[in-house]
């Protein structure tokens, strides 16, 4: 057993972290929230260049996947930098098309996903599609049918303005039958895994920013980080994240191995990472005080993302039920 990321995986994370850190993601997030997708699509291309989308696409379609552990590593970094867009949906759509084994649809979309030329939405079991207005296509799974559409209803703002929701409309049937449901179940696992990883990275960033803040901010003549009430809240935040991380990595391994336990392990990781990321946001908000409650502070872009990530692709209640299912 060596339950540690390899040197290569750690180096991959560092490279992404450095690249995203240099991109000034807050401006990209704000543009995305206003419906201006150009900076986001440019960033998308950089992320594709770094090989992230290819991790969900098999070699015969110009990818190098499927590599769930590397996907979890990459999405932790995407979450750390609050990157906007249907990132999770695109890699889950890739997993869906790959698993479905429909040569035509896979051949049309998977190479474009790997190269970053296609932004693909996925809507399965939820009323809204994320960022359909920015997507080149949205796959809509209903029961054992999957449709492809590029029409959607009006964009509705969500609690995270950078997550733009709309109802997918119409579409043409791509496939029908039990294979669709099986592929969709796999896609949901990938979506939950990558969402959990994003929540973990988001929480790490919120904790780091808050630790820095409480070291600098003085009240009563001392740094507020010297107060025990502040310390203990931050300690609990770290505990939540530290114990969520191995669940995310183990879930990725289970998915990679096609283990029968994969669905349960992914659900467990989703609960723990979603709750830990959300708790980190609550801590960040509280310990930044009124400053943290302001929209103009970039921290708000991270804080507002925590709750949707906790709930997307399976609320904590859904995922706990999955953990209990035999």
């Amino acid at each position, binding site marked *: 057993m060596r339950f540690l990321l390899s040197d290569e995986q750690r180096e991959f994370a560092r490279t992404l972290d450095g690249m995203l850190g240099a991109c000034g993601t807050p401006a990209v997030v704000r543009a995305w929230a206003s419906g201006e997708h150009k900076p986001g699509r440019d960033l998308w291309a950089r992320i594709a260049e770094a090989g992230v989308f290819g991790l969900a696409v098999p070699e015969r379609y110009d990818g190098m996947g499927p590599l769930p552990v590397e996907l979890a590593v990459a999405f932790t970094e995407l979450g750390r930098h609050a990157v906007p867009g249907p990132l999770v949906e695109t890699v889950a759509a890739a997993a869906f098309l790959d698993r479905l084994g429909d040569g035509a649809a896979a051949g049309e979309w998977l190479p474009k996903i790997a190269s970053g030329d296609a932004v693909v939405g996925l809507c399965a079991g939820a009323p809204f599609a994320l960022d359909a207005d920015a997507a080149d296509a949205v796959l809509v799974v209903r029961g054992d049918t999957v449709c492809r559409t590029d029409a959607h209803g009006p964009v509705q703002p969500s609690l995270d303005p950078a997550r733009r929701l709309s109802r997918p409309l119409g579409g043409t049937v791509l496939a029908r039958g039990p294979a669709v449901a099986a592929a969709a179940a796999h896609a949901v696992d990938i979506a939950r895994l990558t969402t959990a990883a994003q929540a973990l990275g988001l929480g790490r960033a919120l904790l780091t920013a808050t630790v820095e803040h409480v070291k600098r901010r003085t009240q009563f003549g001392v740094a507020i980080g*010297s107060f025990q009430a502040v310390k203990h809240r931050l300690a609990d935040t770290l505990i939540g994240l530290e114990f969520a991380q191995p669940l995310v990595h183990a879930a990725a391994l289970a998915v990679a191995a096609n283990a029968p336990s994969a669905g349960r392990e992914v659900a467990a990781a989703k609960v723990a990472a979603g709750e830990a990321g959300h708790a980190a946001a609550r801590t960040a908000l509280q310990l930044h005080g009124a400053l943290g409650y302001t929209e103009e502070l970039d921290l708000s872009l991270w804080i507002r993302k925590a709750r949707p990530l906790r709930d997307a692709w399976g609320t904590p209640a859904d995922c706990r039920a999955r953990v209990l299912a035999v």
Partner: protein
Amino acid sequence: MNLDFTAAEETFRTAARDWLARHVPATPLPSLETAEGFAAHREWERRLFADRWSVVSWPEEYGGRGASILQWLIFEEEYYAAGAPGRVSQNGINLLAPTLFEHGTDEQRARILGPMASGEVIWAQAWSEPEAGSDLASLRSTAVRTDGGWLLGGQKTWSSRAAFADRAFGLFRSEPDTPKPHQGLTYLMFPLDAPGVTVRPLGRLDGKPAFAELFLDEVFVPDADVIGEPGQGWRVAMSTAGNERGLTLRSPGRFTAAAERLAALWRAAPEPADPALGDRVADALIGARAYQLFTYAGASRLAAGGSTGAESSLNKVFWSELDIALHETALDLLGPYGTLADDAEEAPAHGSWAEGYTFSLAGPIYAGTNEIQRDIIAERLLGLPKGRR
């Protein structure tokens, strides 16, 4: 990155599982915090030792199997999954033995470890004093030099297992008036039936004498029972504290097994009164798995040449709170039966949930309170400034 066990590890697991299946008592032993239960648990230690399962991670010359950390974790998973008895010898095995391996003499190891491993000598800890709990270094019990040894004086308290144990270990002030409180302390071992020792058992929350007060009046201890150098006791003891909080005190196997039993209890309930209980059962399964994986990662880091330090504080807070949440959920699932004491006639599962619940309540207090652990996490892992406690 992988979670795979080697063939040798799987063989080890099978051997442990087979032995436990043949030897674990069908009915749980009486609580080890009673005279009858203590004796029964001592006998169980003897049976474990006879087949070299009492101290698997020790070298073979002391009755162990030279097991790796991972093998030890495997053994613990099997041990608790089999529903085997609590370990009455754990103070000695988990706290004193690592100190002897690191700081003891060959003579001490040869004399002390065998009887510890067989349950012939059961050890109590004697750290805390009435005025020295979390602030352990402020302890006032003394060790005064005498011919060939030391004379102990003062009072120890909340001394786990001391009501029925044979010997104890702890820290004593051997040099008065040192510049700092953690200087001038000496680590000593002494018999609980020595002249000058008075043991007054203390009832824990449910009344069982799980610990005791120790009154010490000119108790003679020979030089052979000092561990490390006189005056260096703090440094010697801190290596034990590291073990206590780290990988060794409460293995993940305890919690993965308890969470599985909780899930079985939930599934067996004809109509759970409160659907929210299902969420709490799921959280127990998730928490136990998280702790197991966190420990596998820690073991992997150690195997790769890393070390553990303040990370063990994360661990201690996590398992102690998981343990309480898990047992509270069990009692809630049991409804009116969950209010019965462990020795009640109709107590479910032979009272194991009630016993486990009472035991779990001590978790956030012993081995360094969770408040102290959170201070350590904040200061050493997050780099926050020291402040007033």
